[in-house]
C-alpha cells in the first residue's frame, strides 16, 4: 500500500485525539470520584440512581418523622403512666377507706384529697408538647378535658378527641403515633362487623351491653338497628336498671355506600362517634360505628372498653365522700376496670414505640444497603481509574515521542 505523508498525520492525530479523549474522561472520573457524571454516561445507571436517591430521601424523611413522633409518644406514655399511678393510689386509698376503723372525718378529708387527685389526673389528660395536647386527637390545639362550671362533670372538647395522627414509616405503611383521649379516657362501646344489605326494609336487630352510671348503677343498654330504606338504618336506644326499660328520645341515622358498603354518613355528616349522655342517670359514653360496613350478612360484634366515664365516676365518689358516703362496689369495679384498661393502653403505646424503634433500625439497615448500591452504581473504582489514567498518559507521551521522531523525517533529511 502506498503511504503518503498526510496518512501519517491522520493516523497520528486520530491516535492522539483518542488518547486525549480517554484521558479527559478518566481525569473527570478521578477528580469527581464518580463514574456517572451525566445521564449519557449510563442512562440505565442514572435511572437506577434516581430510584436509589428517591428511596434514600424517603428513608431520611421516614426516620425524621419517627424521631419527631417518638418525642410526643414518650411524653404520652409518661403521662399515661402518671395517670395510672394516681389511679392505683386512688384504688388503694378507697379500699383503705372501707375499713370499718376509718372514721367519718377521714372519709370527708379524703374527699378534698380526691379533688386534688382529679385535678392532677386532668393535668395528665391535658398534657401537651409545644402547645399540642397529647390526648386531643387531631384537634390538638384545644384542651381536651375540662371541669364544667359546677365542677360536677368533665366536659370533653366538642370537636372530638378521637382523631388518630399517623405518619408514614414506609412507602405504603402509615403508623398511628398518638393515643387518643377517646380511647384512653372515654367509655366507648365499639360496634364492628357487617349488616346484611339484602335484609327487608323494616327489619331490626339489637345489641345489648351492661353500662354503668357514674354513681355505680348498672344498666342493660340496648341499641336497636332498624332498616328504614336501602343502605339506611335508624339507631334507637333504651336502658333498663332492672325496674323496667326506658326508651331514649334520641335516634341516629346511618347511611352506607351502595357500592362499597362503607359507612358514608352519620346523621347526614361525615362518620363520627355517637354520644350517649343521660345526665339524670349519670350515663355518659360513646358508640363507635366507624368499623361497621354493609355486606351480605349481619354479623355485628361489640366491645366496651370501660363501663363508665372515669372522671365522672371519681367526681361522684368525691361528692359522696364529702357527705361521708363510701364508694359502692360497682364504682370501685369501674376504677379497677379503668386501671386495667389504661395499663393496656400504656402497653399499646409501648408497642407503637417499639415498632417505631424497630422501624428506625430497619431504615438504618436499608439506608446502608442503598448507599452501598448507590456507591457501586455511581462511584468510580479509584485504583482502577488511576492505573488507567497512568496507562493513557504513558500512551500519550509515547505518541508525542514517536511523532517527534517520525513525522518530520523524509528522504530529504538524507540527501
Amino acid at each position, binding site marked *: 500500500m*502506498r*503511504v503518503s505523508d498526510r*496518512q501519517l498525520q491522520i493516523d497520528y492525530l486520530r491516535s492522539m485525539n483518542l488518547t486525549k479523549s480517554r484521558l479527559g474522561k478518566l481525569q473527570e472520573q478521578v477528580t469527581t470520584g464518580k463514574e456517572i457524571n*451525566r*445521564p449519557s454516561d449510563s442512562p440505565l445507571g442514572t435511572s437506577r440512581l434516581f430510584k436509589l436517591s428517591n428511596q434514600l430521601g424517603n428513608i431520611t424523611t421516614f426516620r425524621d418523622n419517627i424521631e419527631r*413522633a417518638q418525642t410526643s409518644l414518650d411524653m404520652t406514655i409518661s403521662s399515661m403512666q402518671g395517670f395510672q399511678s394516681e389511679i392505683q393510689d386512688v384504688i388503694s386509698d378507697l379500699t383503705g377507706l372501707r375499713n370499718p376503723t376509718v372514721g367519718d372525718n377521714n372519709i370527708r378529708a379524703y374527699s378534698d384529697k380526691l379533688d386534688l387527685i382529679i385535678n392532677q389526673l386532668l393535668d395528665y389528660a391535658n398534657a401537651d408538647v409545644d402547645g399540642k395536647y397529647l390526648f386531643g386527637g387531631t384537634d390538638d*390545639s384545644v384542651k381536651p378535658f375540662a371541669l364544667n362550671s359546677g365542677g360536677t362533670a368533665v366536659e370533653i372538647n366538642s370537636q372530638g378527641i378521637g382523631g388518630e395522627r399517623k*405518619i408514614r414509616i414506609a412507602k405504603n405503611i402509615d403508623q398511628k403515633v398518638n393515643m387518643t383521649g377517646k380511647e384512653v379516657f372515654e367509655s366507648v362501646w365499639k360496634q364492628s362487623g357487617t349488616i346484611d344489605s339484602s335484609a327487608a326494609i323494616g327489619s331490626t336487630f339489637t345489641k345489648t351491653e351492661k353500662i354503668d352510671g357514674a354513681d355505680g348503677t348498672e344498666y342493660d343498654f340496648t341499641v336497636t338497628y332498624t332498616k328504614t330504606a336501602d343502605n339506611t338504618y335508624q339507631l334507637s336506644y333504651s336502658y333498663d336498671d332492672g325496674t323496667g326499660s326506658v326508651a331514649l328520645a334520641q335516634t341516629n341515622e346511618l347511611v352506607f355506600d351502595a357500592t362499597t358498603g362503607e359507612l358514608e354518613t352519620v346523621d347526614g355528616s361525615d362518620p363520627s362517634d355517637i354520644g350517649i349522655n343521660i345526665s339524670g342517670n349519670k350515663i355518659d359514653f360513646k358508640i363507635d360505628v366507624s368499623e361497621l360496613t354493609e355486606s351480605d350478612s349481619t354479623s355485628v360484634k361489640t366491645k366496651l372498653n370501660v363501663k363508665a366515664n372515669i372522671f365522672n365516676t371519681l367526681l361522684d365518689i368525691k361528692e359522696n365522700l364529702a357527705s361521708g358516703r363510701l364508694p359502692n362496689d360497682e364504682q370501685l369495679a369501674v376504677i379497677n376496670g379503668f386501671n386495667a384498661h389504661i395499663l393496656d393502653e400504656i402497653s399499646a403505646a409501648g408497642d407503637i414505640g417499639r415498632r417505631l424503634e424497630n422501624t428506625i433500625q430497619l431504615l438504618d439497615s436499608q439506608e446502608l444497603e442503598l448507599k452501598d448500591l448507590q456507591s457501586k452504581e*455511581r462511584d468510580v473504582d479509584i485504583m482502577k481509574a488511576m492505573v488507567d489514567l497512568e496507562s493513557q498518559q504513558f500512551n500519550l507521551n509515547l505518541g508525542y515521542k514517536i511523532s517527534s521522531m517520525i513525522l518530520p523525517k523524509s528522504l530529504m533529511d538524507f540527501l
Partner: protein
Amino acid sequence: MGITKLFDISRRSLLTYQKALSITSNNVANANNPDYSRQRSLFSNVGPDYRTNIAIGSGVQLTDVERIRDQILDRQSWEYRQNYNSAQKQSSILANIESLFSEPSEQGMSALLDQFFNSWDDLSVDPTSSALRSNVVYAAENLSVKLQNVYEGMTTLRRDLKKDSQVLVGDLNNYITELKHINKQIYEATVVNKGANDLLDKRDELLNKMSDIANIQVNIDEYGVANVSIGGVFAVDRVHSITFDIFEESNGKLALKTEDGNSKVALQSGELYGNFRSVNEFIPEAKEQFDDLFNSIVFHVNQSHSQGYSTTDPPVTGIDFFEGYSNGVLKINKDIIDDPQLIAVSKDGTNGNNELALELAKLQHNNLLNGSTFAENYANIVGSLASEKQFQDQNTETFGLVLNQLEQQISSVSGVSIDEEMIDVLKYQRSYDASAKLISIADEMMKTVLQMI
C-alpha cells in the same frame, strides 16, 4: 540525421524534465494540503522521422499531467461525512440539553421532586409548624425555578440552533454559488483540453464542505462538472444554481426549502439535519413531556389540596396549591406564598389532622401518569435523551472510524509522499543533467566538424 537533431532532442528533453520538476515541486508544496490531489507527469516518446532510412526516435515529451483521484472513495467519503457530522452535531446538542438537567445531583429535578413530596411528609408530623409549612413552599419554589431554568435553557438553545442553522444555510448557498462558477470553469477548461486538475480539487473541496452540512447527491459528468441536488431538490450544475432558506412552519418546526418556498428539502444527514432534528424533535418532545408531567402534578396536587382545610382562623377549604402550569412556568398560589398557613393538610378542619399531607406525600409513589410515577416519568425524559446521546456518540465514533479509514484510503491514493516526490526529483534532475551533457557533447561534435573546415 544531422548533429543539429541532437540539439533538438536534448532541448526537448531539458524542457520536458524541467516541466516534470515543476509538477513534482507543486506536489511537494501541497504535501500538507488536505484538498490537493497529487499529479503525475505522463511522458511519451517523440516519434521518428520516417523520411530517413533508419527510423530513430526524436526524444521525449510531456503529454499530460494526470490527477490521481478515486471517485468511488470520494462518494463514500461524502456519505460518511454527512452521517458523521449529523451524529456529532446531535451528540453535541444533546450534551447541551442534558447539562441543563444537572443530573445526577442534589440540584437536579429528580432530587427537587423528591424534596417537594417529602416536604409534605415532614409537614404531616407537625401540621401546624410554620417552619415546615414554609419548607413546603420553599421546596415547591425550588422545583419551579429549576423547571423554569431547564425550560428556558431549551428555548434559548432552540433559538441558538435556528441562528446556527441560518449561518449554515448561508454557507451552503455560498458553496452552491461558488460551485456553479467552478463548474463553468471546469467545463471551459476541459472542452479546450486545458488542465482542470486544480479546479477539480476546488470542486471536491466544495463538495466536501457541502456534504458536511447536508445530504447531497452528486453526479459528475464527462466534463468533470458536478451536478448536485440536496435532499431530492436540485441545487447546482454548470449553468444554474438555486439558493435555500429556512422556514418556520405553523407547528413551529424548521424546514429547509428553496428560497421561493416551493420545494422542501428532505434532510436526512449533515450538520443541518442535526440542528433540525434537535429543534423539531428533541426539544419539543422534551417540552411536551415536561408539560404532561407538570400538568399532572398540578392537577393531582390541587385535586387533593383543594379538599383540605387551612390552619387559618377560620379554616378555609377549596384552595389550590398551584395557580397553574404553562410553558415551563409552575406558579405556586400567591396567597399560599404570602401566608403558608393556607396550606391545607387537614381533611376535617382540625389542626392536628394530617391526612391530606400524607395523601399528598403518597402522590410520589402512585402511578398517576402514563402508568408510572412522577419520578419515573421524569427519569424517562432524561433517560430517553441520554440514550439518544449515547446512540449519537456511538454513531459519531463509528462513522468517524469509517470516515477516517476513507480519508486514509483517499490519502493513500491522492496524497503526496515526499519520499516518492524526492525520488522523482532525483530522477528528473539526472535526466536533465544527462540532456545538458548531451548538448555539451553535441556542441563538441559541432566544434570538431567546424575545425575541419
